[in-house]
């Protein structure tokens, strides 16, 4: 490690991974509820389990991003972190807020949680992904402000590189866009319009800046390619992300109130949204082919190339499949949306976090530049099991979605199957998806196990002592 303070990233990474594991467990629960409708009812109704599944995803990704920033900003800025104490305090505040919120979702009915946290004083709850009690949202803002202050001061007193400037822009954008979660007018059409400023402008906007800069950092470190080359790529990638993604928000404005011109704008710009993800793939592979050194951390390189490919497939290809307005008219809010959501989030944001964790954790843990070769083999097993499982989850949900559109959306009103009748027809796909989910969990177990695999010589040494 170049700077001692980079080690504050460790609890962030560890906690992120624990939440990731819990997210997968709840994913299996909701997946099972898709086929056994009353599984765990009334103890954990579907709405609570799904909320835990999606909120844990958001929170673990935020923990991961923060860990990534605490790790790479001192190194890029070439100074110690402004305050490790603040970073440690904020870790505990954020962890406590996260645990309390999830416990609240599971232990009491949502209406009770709303009453207990006085939602009526400042109603922000009950909107998808923004279900956190208002007080928890305030907590997130406080943590984000403290975090931005800490990393911002570090950049200010140190070297300003393209990577840390773009990462800062992404992180500030993340915090600013989240403020729209506090705007909840009684008018549903207005509410939805600005709800997307949080959701879309995060994942198809500022988060791409965060992803791009983390990827660029890991590629500089692992390939030894000239910084000038990598930074030029980074500029072009994030330029394309914002040029396509900002007006691309329009693909969410087709059917929720805004005027028909959004059908054209949203279709056109969101059809271009695969470009930045495609460029990330080309970027990662190119840099690896042009590498000037053989970095011992093969696993981190695998993650870096994998995140480019999977983000392109999940966010790019699966997004494009249903983004054009005439197609979206039929697929909006179907299992196609779910298919896209799963692969896009895993490919882009879960995997970029796993990339930086794979790169940084061995260094933080004092294993040198990389984990022992045996540990990397187990980690790569985790990579392939999780990634291939996610491909199958996506394919099965896509199959379910196509059949759903065929039965429920395409026919005229008299002939179309009802939603519930349609779901009965999709059961086989949902079982297969659940099976793929179990395989994903096995991959996750492999991945976790890789942290506990030591070098062969050490194992022999222990045996000898005995």
């Amino acid at each position, binding site marked *: 490690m170049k700077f001692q303070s980079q080690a504050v990233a460790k609890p962030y990474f560890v906690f992120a991974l624990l939440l990731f594991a819990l997210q997968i467990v709840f994913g299996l629960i909701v997946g099972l509820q898709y086929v056994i409708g*009353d599984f765990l009812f009334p103890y954990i109704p579907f709405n609570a389990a*799904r909320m835990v599944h999606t909120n844990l995803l958001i929170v673990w990704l935020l923990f991961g991003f923060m860990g990534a920033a605490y790790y790479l900003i001192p190194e890029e800025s070439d100074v110690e972190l402004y305050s490790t104490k603040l970073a440690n305090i904020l870790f505990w505040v954020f962890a406590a807020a996260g645990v309390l919120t999830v416990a609240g979702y599971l232990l009491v009915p949502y209406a009770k949680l709303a009453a207990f946290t006085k939602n009526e004083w400042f109603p922000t709850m009950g*909107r998808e992904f923004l*279900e956190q009690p208002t007080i928890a949202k305030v907590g997130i803002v406080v943590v984000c402000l403290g975090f931005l202050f800490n990393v911002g001061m570090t950049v200010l007193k140190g070297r300003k590189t393209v990577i840390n400037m773009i990462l800062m822009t992404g992180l500030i954008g993340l915090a600013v866009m989240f403020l729209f979660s506090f705007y909840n007018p009684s008018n*549903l059409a207005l509410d939805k319009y600005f709800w997307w400023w949080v959701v879309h402008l995060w994942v198809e906007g500022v988060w791409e800046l965060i992803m791009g800069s983390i990827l660029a950092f890991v590629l500089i470190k692992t390939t030894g390619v000239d910084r000038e080359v990598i930074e030029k790529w980074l500029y072009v990638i994030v330029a394309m992300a914002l040029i396509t993604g*900002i*007006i691309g928000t329009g693909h969410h404005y087709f059917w929720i109130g805004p005027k028909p011109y959004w059908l054209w704008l949203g279709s056109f710009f969101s059809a271009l949204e695969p470009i930045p993800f495609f460029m990330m793939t080309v970027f990662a592979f190119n840099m690896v082919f042009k590498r000037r050194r053989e970095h011992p951390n093969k696993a981190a390189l695998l993650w870096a190339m994998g995140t480019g490919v999977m983000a392109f497939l999940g966010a790019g290809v699966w997004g494009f499949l249903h983004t054009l307005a005439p197609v979206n008219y039929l697929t*909006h*809010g179907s299992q196609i949306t779910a298919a896209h959501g799963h692969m896009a989030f895993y490919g882009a944001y879960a995997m970029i976090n796993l990339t930086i964790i794979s790169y940084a954790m061995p260094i933080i843990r004092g294993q040198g530049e990389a984990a022992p070769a045996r540990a990397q083999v187990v980690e790569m097993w985790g990579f392939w099991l999780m990634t291939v499982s996610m491909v199958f989850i996506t394919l099965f949900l896509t199959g379910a979605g196509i059949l759903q559109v065929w039965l429920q959306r395409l026919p005229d009103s008299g002939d179309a199957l009802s939603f519930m009748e349609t779901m009965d027809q999709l059961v086989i796909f949902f079982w297969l998806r659940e099976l793929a989910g179990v395989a994903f969990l096995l991959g996750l177990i492999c991945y976790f196990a890789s942290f506990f695999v030591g070098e062969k010589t050490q194992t022999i040494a222990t045996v000898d002592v005995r």
Partner: protein
Amino acid sequence: MAEVFTKTAARNIYIGGSVFFVLFFLGLTFETTRSLPQRDHRENLTEAVAHGKMIWEENNCIGCHTLMGEGAYFAPELANVFDRRGLANEEAFKAYLQGWMAAQPLGVPGRRAMPQFNLTVQEVNDLADFLIWTSRIEDNNWPPNIEG
């Protein structure tokens, strides 16, 4: 290529492109907030509708259902449930919703189960008013048919 397309050029595309599209988006947002009143019929947004939205939110209905196609995909679309189950008749729909909410959970083994939310008659009426109001937002004729 490296000499023709410099890092400065790349940076300028990034900054110029983002600023241009942020401003364009703000302009479109300004236009949308101006034109939205004709499409969301906000003149009919009564106290009951607003209260209904709050009940919708505080019971996390979006955790299972979609509303205008957004939400969870576990239970039926509800932005057009007024047309589907109430046959676009307000009184009929309110009577239907009262009966439906009171009957939950249905207790059919293996069937997806909706919790009992213990709402008052007034609360169910307000929820119905919210769903009726929502069904009348101009949404470019989505969904394609009555099943949502």
